[in-house]
């Protein structure tokens, strides 16, 4: 699964990872891990992130053929 979190942060703000983390109620490390693709967020967190970045979950997270 790939994601467009970094791009969406740039579009909306720019918003830093720390700001996004604080608004989503998680740590900056979690945002870094999601952006790197090493951690898949829960549906709840994905919806929260999409809401904060004023986009949809489908725009933020994209399934790849190997998933």
């Amino acid at each position, binding site marked *: 699964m790939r994601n467009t979190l970094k791009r969406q942060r740039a579009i909306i703000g720019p918003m830093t990872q720390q700001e996004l983390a604080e608004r989503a109620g998680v*740590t900056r*490390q*979690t945002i870094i891990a999601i952006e790197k693709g090493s951690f898949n967020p829960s549906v709840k967190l994905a919806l929260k992130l999409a809401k904060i970045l004023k986009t949809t979950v489908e725009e933020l997270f994209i399934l790849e053929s190997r998933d």
Partner: protein
Amino acid sequence: MKKISSSMLKSLWLFAVVLVIMISSGLPIWLLVTVLILLLALPLLREITHRSDADERQIYISHYSSHLALYVFVALILFVMIHDYQLSGTQPDVKFYMLLLVPLVIKFIISLLQNYGAGTAGRWIGYFFASVWLLFALLDHGFSLMGVIQALPFIVLFALAWYSKKQPLICGILYIVLALVGLFFFKGWIKMGIYGLILMYTLVPLPVFISGTALVFSSIKKEELQ
């Protein structure tokens, strides 16, 4: 000032626990136990309280590391058991079986409850433990009168597990009663040390009690939904 994250605090906490254990040889035992209880109680309290604000990745990391730590613990106990056996040539002490089996039984029960829900898990815990103990009773005494007498509670347990699909509430309550009987049976009739007692409680009354509670809980929940 930069805010200290909860994961950092947790790491410092674990470091403090390790440090206390490392310097424990120089401490009086009562002081060591008090300090360790204090150090271990707070994270345990945090586990059982509502954690809606917790970072899900940190929870994942915490669970994953605990999962691996459990297997390391099991491997260490096995190593000590084998090593002691090689040195002394006698069967390992009952405390090693207790240390080995109690965490694994707890993991097994929690996994079943989480995976299949209270009703199904309650039934399968009943089937599993009744079968294991039935087998022990038969291996111990064979198909003799003594074997049948010893196997009787587990035949009842097996029948209750089978019937619990139709009557979860009644079977659940009977399970709890059986567990309490087991509790007094092991305390009063069988002479064994504290480690053996903990092991027996974990292998018989505890799973039966959890199974009964799960069945009662699933029955109440089902009634609430209807």
